[in-house]
Each structure stands twice: as structure tokens, then as C-alpha cells.
């Protein structure tokens, strides 16, 4: 060992010098008698043993210190943190394995490599502030900063202390670096996820708000519609039935005054009243048919649609070509009603707006869904505009109600139209067969 051999040499040199001095006779040796010499020799011998023991002790202590030094040197080199020693000028003087990896420096560090070169330009002020604090206050950090790296920035946490040599007054900076890139990435991902989530929540809230608004609007319109339907029915009853009944009442008033000759019946006088009553009942049937289809509840969807189409043709002289294919009757009642009402509303719209020559209605089944198409060759319309307009005609409302009815039945409702190109209404509704119902009907 290097340490031990140098101390041996030092002892040897001292001995040589002592022997030389004795031989020259320069040393003033007092006169001694025999007894004194014996005592002196004995003392010297004791002293020698003492020195040897001390020497041995020193050797062991040194060996121990060497072992410890080695151990700490390993710990320093292999620590999971980066350790760097900087000169007062910020030059890298020493760096352990992790620090060398982070700072991309060699072992030992190349002359002139400084820590500021390793710091990302974005954080150079942070670095200088850190170093200033370190100089003034002798400790600094922890501070977060980015180091240059080809594969994106590396985030480190930097902490340091200043060491001043008590004899020379020389300053060293000892820094510890922790790589927190992974932590940073996770943190960033978390922030992004949170931002994304917040954005989604905001979006959903907005959507819900719109939906609530739409529903509110719709329910208001539904109330309007209900009122206007009631007005319509009341008008029908008043105008059609009421007027006729008033007529009959008048007839009865006249009848009261009539004197019938003996043997004659009142028949002739009663006839007009009776005819009027018959007319009133006919009108009543038409009104009640519009409100509720007996055929639908008694015979099912296809016969009801046939009746609807026939009546439409007869009343308005617009041919309706109704075709159906493989309808698994009986369908669930609400499903039949949904389709029936949509056809009814479509025919109403066609009558009021379309100026169509012919109407084509087709109802088919495939892939467990009912497919309804209602097509006319009329003037068509601007769908978006009409839907936005919500005019007092209630025509857009009719469309919206059709769509809502379809949605309630779990179906989809499409309208394809443009001015001059007719209107194509398409409805697709999933159909569940109800086996228990099949047995109940003949």
C-alpha cells in the first residue's frame, strides 16, 4: 500500500538522522554511572515497545480508514442520485455515474465543462439564481430545471451546499440531482387528462343545457299543439255537429206548431230532421276516426294503413300506393300506433303543403327492424329552414313530433327533401315480436 510505505520511509529517515548526530559526538552526553545506564537502557526499551505499539495502532486505524474511504467512494459512485462537485467558477470537477449520465460528461470530466452548458436555455435564469443563492447563503434548492437532451427535455431536481476549505478559503459547490422526468411526464399526463375531462364536462354541460332548452321548447310547443288540437276538435264539433243539431232543433220547433190531419202520419214533417241527424252522425264518425282508429286497435296496422290510404284517396283524390311486405302482425300496440300516426301526419303534411300527384308508402321488415318509407312527388321543401322556422303553421312541429315519436319507439327518423324534388321520409324501428300476443288473437 502506498500510504504505509511512505510513512515507513519517513521513520527510516528520522532514525538515520539520529544515528548521524550520535556518531558526530555533537550530542552533549552527561557523565553517568553504571546504575544510571542500566536504568536508562530499561527506560529506552520500554519506550521502544511503547512506540511500536503506537505504530501498530496507527497502522490498523489507517487500514480501517482506507476501507471506509473505499466504501464511501463506491457509495458515491453508485448512488441513485447524481452528485456533482463544481468549482467556484461553475466548472464540473467531479461527477458520479448518475450525474455523468444526466449531464453527458466523461469520467473524469473534461477540462472546462461547466454545468451551465448542460442546462436548457429556458431554465438558464433559474440556474443562475440557484448558483447565486448557493454562493450567498451556502445552501440552495431544491429547484426544478430542465437539462438539454436530444430526446426531449430531462427534468431534474437540484439541491446544493457550499463547502469552504478552512485553510485556503477555496469554495466548492456540492450538488445533488434527481431525475424527475418520469414524474413530470405522469404529472403532465394527469394535467392533460384533467384538462380533457374538464373540457368534456363543459361540453356535456353545454349539450345538456341545449337539450334541456330543446325539451322545454318542445314541451311548450306540445302544449300549444294540444290546445290547437282541442280548438280544432271543438270547432269541428261546433261547426259540423252543432250547426246540424241546431237545425234539427229548429225543425222540432216548427213541428210543435204543425197540426196533423186525422189519419195522417207525422213522417213527412219529421223526415228533414232525421236526414240532418244522419248527417250529424256521419260527420261525428269522420271526426272520431281522425282521433282514433278502430281498425288499428281491432285489426292491426296493415288494415289500418289500408283504410287510411283509401280514405285519403277518396277524400282528396291523391292516389296513395301502399305496399307492405312480411309484417309480423300483431305488432306491439304502441309500435303500431307510432307508425300509424307518422303515416297520418305525413299524409296531412302532403295534403297541406306538397301538391303531390302520387304518394308511395312502403312498410317492410328486415334485420329485426320495421322500415317505413313515405315518398311523394310534390314540391319538397328546405328541411333545415323549416325546422328552424317553427312557423305558426305547425308543420315543422309535426315533423318534430314525428321524430320524437320515432325516438320514443327506439327508432330513427330521416327526412330527405329539397325544393322541387319531392319528400322522402324514412323510419326504422327495431321490432320485438310478442309471442304471448299471438295466442290471444284469432
Amino acid at each position, binding site marked *: 500500500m502506498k500510504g504505509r510505505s511512505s510513512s515507513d520511509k519517513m521513520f527510516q529517515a528520522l532514525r538515520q538522522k539520529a544515528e548521524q548526530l550520535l556518531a558526530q559526538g555533537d550530542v552533549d552526553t552527561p557523565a553517568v554511572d553504571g546504575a544510571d545506564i542500566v536504568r536508562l537502557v530499561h527506560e529506552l526499551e520500554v519506550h521502544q515497545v511503547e512506540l511500536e505499539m503506537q505504530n501498530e495502532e496507527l497502522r490498523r486505524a489507517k487500514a480501517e480508514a482506507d476501507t471506509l474511504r473505499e466504501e464511501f467512494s463506491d457509495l458515491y459512485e453508485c448512488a441513485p442520485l447524481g452528485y456533482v462537485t463544481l468549482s467556484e467558477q461553475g466548472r464540473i470537477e467531479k461527477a458520479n455515474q448518475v450525474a455523468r449520465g444526466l449531464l453527458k460528461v466523461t469520467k473524469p470530466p473534461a477540462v472546462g465543462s461547466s454545468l451551465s452548458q448542460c442546462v436548457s436555455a429556458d431554465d438558464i435564469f433559474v440556474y443562475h439564481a440557484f448558483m447565486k443563492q448557493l454562493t450567498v447563503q451556502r445552501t440552495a434548492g431544491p429547484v426544478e430545471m430542465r437539462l438539454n437532451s436530444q430526446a426531449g427535455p430531462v427534468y431534474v431536481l437540484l439541491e446544493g451546499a457550499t463547502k469552504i476549505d478552512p485553510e485556503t478559503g477555496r469554495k466548492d459547490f456540492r450538488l445533488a440531482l434527481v431525475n424527475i422526468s418520469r414524474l413530470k411526464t405522469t404529472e403532465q399526463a394527469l394535467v392533460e387528462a384533467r384538462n380533457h375531462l374538464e373540457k368534456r364536462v363543459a361540453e356535456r354541460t353545454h349539450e345538456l343545457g341545449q337539450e334541456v332548452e330543446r325539451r322545454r321548447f318542445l314541451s311548450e310547443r306540445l302544449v300549444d299543439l294540444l290546445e290547437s288540437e282541442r280548438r280544432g276538435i271543438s270547432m269541428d264539433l261546433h261547426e259540423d255537429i252543432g250547426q246540424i243539431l241546431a237545425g234539427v232543433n229548429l225543425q222540432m220547433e216548427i213541428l210543435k206548431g204543425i197540426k196533423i190531419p186525422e189519419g195522417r202520419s207525422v213522417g213527412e214533417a219529421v223526415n228533414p230532421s232525421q236526414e240532418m*241527424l244522419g*248527417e250529424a252522425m256521419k260527420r261525428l264518425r269522420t271526426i272520431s276516426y281522425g282521433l282514433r282508429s*278502430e*281498425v288499428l286497435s*281491432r285489426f292491426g296496422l296493415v288494415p289500418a294503413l289500408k283504410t287510411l290510404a283509401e280514405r285519403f284517396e277518396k277524400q282528396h283524390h291523391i292516389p296513395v*300506393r301502399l305496399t307492405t311486405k312480411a309484417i309480423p302482425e300483431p305488432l306491439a300496440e304502441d309500435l303500431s300506433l307510432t307508425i300509424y300516426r307518422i303515416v297520418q301526419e305525413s299524409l296531412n303534411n302532403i295534403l297541406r303543403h306538397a301538391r303531390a300527384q302520387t304518394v*308511395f308508402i312502403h312498410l317492410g321488415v328486415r334485420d329485426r327492424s320495421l*322500415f317505413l318509407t313515405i315518398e311523394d312527388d310534390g314540391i319538397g321543401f328546405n328541411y333545415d329552414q323549416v325546422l328552424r322556422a317553427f312557423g305558426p303553421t305547425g308543420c315543422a312541429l309535426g315533423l318534430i313530433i314525428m321524430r320524437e315519436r320515432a325516438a320514443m319507439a327506439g327508432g330513427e327518423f330521416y327526412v330527405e327533401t*329539397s325544393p322541387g324534388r319531392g319528400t322522402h321520409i*324514412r323510419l326504422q324501428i327495431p321490432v320485438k315480436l310478442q309471442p304471448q300476443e299471438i295466442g290471444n288473437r284469432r
Partner: protein
Amino acid sequence: MTRAEKFRVLIADDHAVVVEGVQNLLSADKDMEVVGSAKDGVETLAKVKSLQPDMVILDISMPNLDGLETACEIRKIDPKIQVLIYSMTATREHVTALFKTGVSGYVLKEEPLSELHRALQTLKDGATFFSRSVQEVLRDHIRELELDKTKDAREVADEIARLSAREKEVFVLLADGVPVKTIADRLFISPKTVESHKYNILEKLNVPNLAGLTKIAIKKGLINT
């Protein structure tokens, strides 16, 4: 006065006014007797069994078993009992269904009472009576049936007449092998609409696939081979 001499009538209607009116009408007739009345289908059947009438005057729209079902049940209890429908309803479905169950007469409430009177007399004599309006509905139905029969003969022509103008356009293009997407672009409609047209055409022309369409189109000379 024996049972055989008088014609026994049961009136089934959920409206008391109607029951009363018919009763009044019959009271003038010495050959007839109203033996009872019922307010719904179930009560009617019970009274048919207990009173054994010769005829039931039956309304269609009634609670607990409507007229149609009640008429069927009466036929099962005793087919000799005559059923006269007296109702506000005269849709083709109701008329034809009741006609099939074998009712003897059908008069609408909106028609003059004389029609009901004539019906009662006719049924009493063992014949059937259907009022003018009801006959009209039956005639329409028969005409329709005849149309259906002749349909088979001119089938293809008729089937193509079932297609709308737009469907005819799509039909010719599909039969000519033009892809759906191209048809959509050419006709300025969405591919989904073309798909919908396609299925409707297949169903209306009763063919399983596009090859079938092509066959019909060639037969009709709509496309060149």
C-alpha cells in the same frame, strides 16, 4: 200467447238511449217481443244463454268483449240465433269480418230508422238484410278482391307501377349494375336513401337480389343486354 208465436229479441248496446229507442220501435210490432237488454258483451252472452232469444240486436263498440267477438260467441252457443248488427262503425274490416262470422243483418245508426225496421221484418222472415251503406262497403271489398285476382295476370306491369318515379330511376341504375354510391352521387341523394330505395324495390318487385332486378329490367326492355 205462446212462445212460438212471438219473435224474441235481445238488445245489446251500452247506450240506454239506443236500447230505449229500439224498444219503442218494437213495441208497435205485435209479432215481436223484447225479452231483455245487455250493456256489454259478457252480459249479452249470459242473457243469450238464459233467455234464448230468436234474435240479438248487437252494437259493435261495447266494453268487455266487443260486438265482433260477441257475435262469434253467439254463433257458437246457437247458430240459429240471428244477429243484427246495429252500429256507428262501418269500416271495411269490421263489415267483412262480421260478414264472415255469419251475421244476418247490418244497419248503421246514422241511417233512417225505417232501415232498422225493414231489417227486423226481413230477419223475422228468415232472410238477411244489409243496409245500403253496408252493401256499398261490401261491394268495394269484392271489387278489390277481383282486382287482386286479375293482378296475377298482369303481374310484372303492376309491380313496376308500384314503384315511385325515384324508385324507377334507382331500379334501372341498379339493374344496370351501377354501384349504390355512384347512384347517390348521380341523383343527389344520400347513399342511405339509395339503400332504402333498393330494399323497397326488391320487396315491391318480390325478388331476392339484384340479379332478379336485372332479369325484370331486361324482360321489360328497360336496359340493354
